[in-house]
């Protein structure tokens, strides 16, 4: 699986669970923690389990981690859990996706960069939607979230291009 597919499948939590800053921040941080834990559990197993056995192991660990996290949310943060809907459960899919697409890359650095970037984008989107929703009703709804996401990504790309360009000018 390649990165565009990963990005496409990650849209569901990104658009669905970013109505408020609290919602976005909790789902983003839960995803971050659970995916890191999942990766940590898989690291020693990956060499021993290849092919279908490895995928079974990945599935089992993702299911167990997400179930336990959900039970903890129910027990200690029930009101928060109610605002999150089905998205805490969906983190299992994120765990599998990250394992599938980035599991083979050696070292933690590239994986962490993607994860932290994704979490930051999620929180930024949540903040934008909460700020705008009081004035622009569209921002609170799903289509508005998609438009905003496009806008945020365009801004990030613009900033990166600018920086790349200035760096080129700086070091001819």
């Amino acid at each position: 699986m390649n990165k565009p597919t990963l990005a496409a499948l990650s849209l569901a939590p990104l658009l669905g669970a970013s109505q408020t800053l609290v919602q976005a921040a909790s789902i983003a941080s839960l995803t971050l923690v659970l995916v890191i834990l999942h990766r940590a559990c898989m690291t020693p197993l990956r060499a021993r389990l290849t092919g279908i056995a490895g995928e079974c192991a990945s599935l089992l660990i993702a299911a167990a981690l997400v179930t336990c996290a959900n039970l903890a949310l129910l027990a200690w943060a029930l009101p928060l859990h109610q605002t999150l809907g089905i998205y805490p459960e969906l983190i299992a899919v994120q765990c599998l996706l990250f394992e599938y697409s980035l599991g083979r890359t050696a070292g933690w650095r590239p994986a962490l960069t993607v994860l932290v970037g994704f979490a930051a984008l999620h929180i930024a989107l949540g903040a934008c939607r909460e700020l705008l929703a009081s004035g622009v009703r569209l921002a609170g709804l799903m289509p508005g979230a998609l438009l905003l996401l496009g806008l945020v990504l365009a801004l990030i790309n613009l900033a990166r291009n600018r920086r790349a360009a200035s760096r080129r000018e700086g070091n001819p």
Partner: protein
Amino acid sequence: MNRTLLVGLLTALTLGATLAWQHATAPRIAQAQAQLQARTWLSVLPTSRYDNQPLQQPLALPQPALEHSRLLAAYRATLQGRTSAVVLHSQTQGYEGPIQLLIAIDRAGRVMATKVLEQHETPGLGDKIAAPDSPWLGAFTGLSQGNTPAQAWGLKRDNGQFDQLAGASVTSRAVIHAVQDALRYFDSQAPQWLAGEPDE
């Protein structure tokens, strides 16, 4: 062989850990759910108006199917042993699905507060009934069968006295009729519910 063993071991381990964790958190989850239910349900009653635990005191509901809605439960709130209010849990059909309402009614048959527990109405239009402290729901406060004639329970365009939520006339009608049903039911049951208690 070695691989199968490892996957089997992993299955047992993850399953065991999950079950143990579920067992450990179960009492805490039950407690949290009861607390949350009590907090949302009792938000329709000012704390100065009761000193019992109303959710522990359900009332019997003979013939709970009403004209436009259905009653699911009723609870008695008492202050110093005397009934101060009754909270009715009612369900009616909205535009997109069932709407569940809590309607608190005082001894005199007046609405004290109304709250939407569950709804599936159109986002941005009908779902405004569920907004916290919805001004539209606030319009019912203080109304009773005594101070509001039966034909006034409708939208202004149906010759009633209530505004409608913009773009959500079906939702608005459903809620108005459910509140009227609840008041009617309270008045019919009040003699039994308040029997043996002196009036003010």
